[in-house]
């Protein structure tokens, strides 16, 4: 026990002596929470849109004013023709163009349905394009119920099912409430995985690991003493990140923070074991950075942090069974936004525990082999 404490003391001294480490530890949460949360958003507020109005009628004006009235769009000047509009899209001046054909109103008056409207969307960013289109569509659908059409005596269907949607937990669709828990996950993961891996590799690269090996320090003491400081630091980072999230973005924090920290403690041990495993695979810090960057990237992309899991094919859902981040992202959102209790997250907790035991065994086994 005393030995472990000594190693920890040495580690803490090294961490705090390192000029780079402290700024990273404190800048990382601030930069990530301020830049990432603001940059990583599909919350559409400024879809730049223009009209090509071949009809110039009251009806076409009604459409235009409807779009103008919603706060998703910035409506540019009308384009005289489709080819002009295409050019505007090509030059990146607008993202979408709505073309209202000739005799639009006339067809309504003569009841020759359906009326046709063309929408041209710049799909270079395909996600953006889909979401923009769904917003445009929503507004069109709402026009259906406008007085305009009722006055025109369009025959209403005999039966109607009223669908009344209600949104829970984030009723105002605040994207930041969605992103902040995700960014907290990245923060904890980066600190524990990357720094954990780098820390052991440095001893290898500099050669001091040989010196440590000839001391009476046992392997397990070395590993625990080496990694425990990062366990504390990662928990500290989480606390720091939560504080910033609460102060800057007013994240709800519905659930129990004790539960969150308890789950995180286990999760960090899992990540540290992964870091230890990576450190046995590589020779120097550059390789460690690249290898952990590679794994992190895959894990992050698949975890549902930026995109929803529902849109991924089945086989990815299976891969996610061994992706620690997928569990942590889910649990973080469940606790912070929905107020889930221990019993609700129990399956996730068990899964992470199993992964942790497995990973720890693997890392320690591999570590012993490389050292011995």
């Amino acid at each position, binding site marked *: 026990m005393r030995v472990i404490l000594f190693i920890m003391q040495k580690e803490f001294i090294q961490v705090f002596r390192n000029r780079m480490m402290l700024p990273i530890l404190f800048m990382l949460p601030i930069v990530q929470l301020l830049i990432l949360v603001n940059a990583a958003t599909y919350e559409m507020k400024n879809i730049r849109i223009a009209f090509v109005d071949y009809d110039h009628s009251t009806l076409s004006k009604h459409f235009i004013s409807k779009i103008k009235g919603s706060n998703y769009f910035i409506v540019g000047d009308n384009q005289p023709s489709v080819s002009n509009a295409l050019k505007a899209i090509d030059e990146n001046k607008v993202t979408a163009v709505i073309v209202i054909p000739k005799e639009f109103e006339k067809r309504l008056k003569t009841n020759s349905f359906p*009326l046709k409207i063309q929408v041209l969307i710049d799909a270079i960013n395909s996600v953006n394009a889909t979401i923009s289109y769904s917003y445009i569509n929503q507004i069109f659908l709402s026009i259906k119920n406008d007085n305009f059409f009722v006055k025109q005596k369009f025959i209403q269907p005999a039966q109607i099912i009223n669908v009344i949607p209600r949104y829970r937990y984030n009723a105002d669709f*605040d994207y930041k409430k969605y992103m902040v828990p995700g960014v907290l996950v990245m923060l904890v993961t980066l600190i524990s995985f990357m720094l954990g891996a780098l820390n052991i590799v440095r001893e290898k690269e500099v050669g001091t690991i040989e010196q440590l090996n000839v001391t009476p320090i046992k392997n397990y003491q070395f590993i625990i003493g080496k990694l425990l400081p990062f366990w504390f630091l990662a928990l500290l980072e989480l606390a720091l990140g939560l504080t910033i999230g609460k102060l800057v973005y007013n994240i709800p924090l519905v659930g129990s923070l004790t539960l969150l920290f308890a789950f995180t403690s286990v999760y960090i041990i899992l990540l540290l074991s992964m870091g230890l495993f990576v450190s046995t695979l590589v020779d120097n810090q550059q390789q460690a950075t690249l290898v952990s960057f590679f794994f992190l990237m895959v894990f992050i992309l698949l975890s549902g942090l930026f995109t929803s899991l529902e849109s991924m094919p089945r086989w990815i859902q299976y891969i996610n069974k061994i992706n620690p981040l997928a569990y942590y992202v889910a649990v973080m959102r469940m606790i912070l936004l929905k107020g889930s209790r221990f019993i609700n997250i129990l399956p996730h907790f068990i899964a992470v525990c199993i992964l942790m035991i497995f990973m720890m065994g693997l890392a320690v086994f591999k570590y012993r082999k490389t050292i011995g």
Partner: protein
Amino acid sequence: MWNLKAFIKKEFLHISRDWRTLVVLFAIPAVQLIVFGYAISNDLKYISIGILDKSKDEISRKLVAKLAFSDFFKLNALLNEESEIEALFKNGSIKEAIIIEQNFSKKLIREGKANIQLIADATEPNTANMAVNYTNAMINSFLTEINKQPIQSPLFITEVKMLYNPTLKASWMFVPGIIALILTLISVMLTSVSIVKEKEFGSMELLLVTPLKPVTIMVGKVIPYFILSIFNITFIFLLGYLLFNVPVVGSILTLYFISLLYIILALTIGIFISVSVSNQQIAMMISLVALMLPTILLSGFIFPIENMPKWLQVLSAIMPPRYFIDALRGIMLKGNSFAELWKDFAVIISMLLFFIIVSIKKYKSRLM
């Protein structure tokens, strides 16, 4: 010249001995392409739902069956009471609850109007939005089905045309970004680290006392990574084309020209970093924080710049990868010509000049 050749050979040996780095360098684009191409799409599938059918009559049962057997939904729970919903949301087993009111058929037939309530878990705003839209569409089509009336022509239809990426393939959107990412990784990070490493280990002093001129050392350091970059982008183009048919509508020549220009810019930034710092860890952190983060986040690679707050848009305007990705997308997807992209070229060239001048100034005072 002979000196340079020998030096380049030494560098190549260093790089090829470090096989893990090489593997990762080629694995990153491959895995990214596959993950982005297959995993990220915009249509939701299998949204987990729970249904509370309060009336359990003929029509409502039909509706439940229709919802349960659709591809969009996965029926995870048939509920008996409204109070069960909360717990299901909390353990994440459903994303939407559909509540059919009592006397559903009666109301629908007698009054011509019945209600269905949807409760969606909006922790993921876009998912909730789409789930509700799907359900809505499904219920509407159910209504026309049970009425057995010929499908009434709708009020209006929107014809949508997705320009440049008609089938909305995510891989088309990501290939240009991945190229920028990889070039930044190789050119900035590896170059900067490789020079700093010599400094850190003290072998830089040894190199400087050889008859090699400092310029030769720099050029020799840079050329292997230059060649590696060219291989790597060709690999990504091919992979994108073979796996996902990512097109190159514009001219390949322009494509390579802008890529080469960007590689040189990135290498110059790498040298700038390496002459400014003293050890590998700092070099790596700077290239990660100052370049990777902006490449991924502030360049419009994944998240559109116009959605960001103004201060971030300003920040993104000084990020080199932004112009490169813009030009790549212009050439590959839009088929823009050199003349149409002059702005991007101009910005990249001026950034290049800026970094060359600054690096030379710094370099003279540091190395000599």
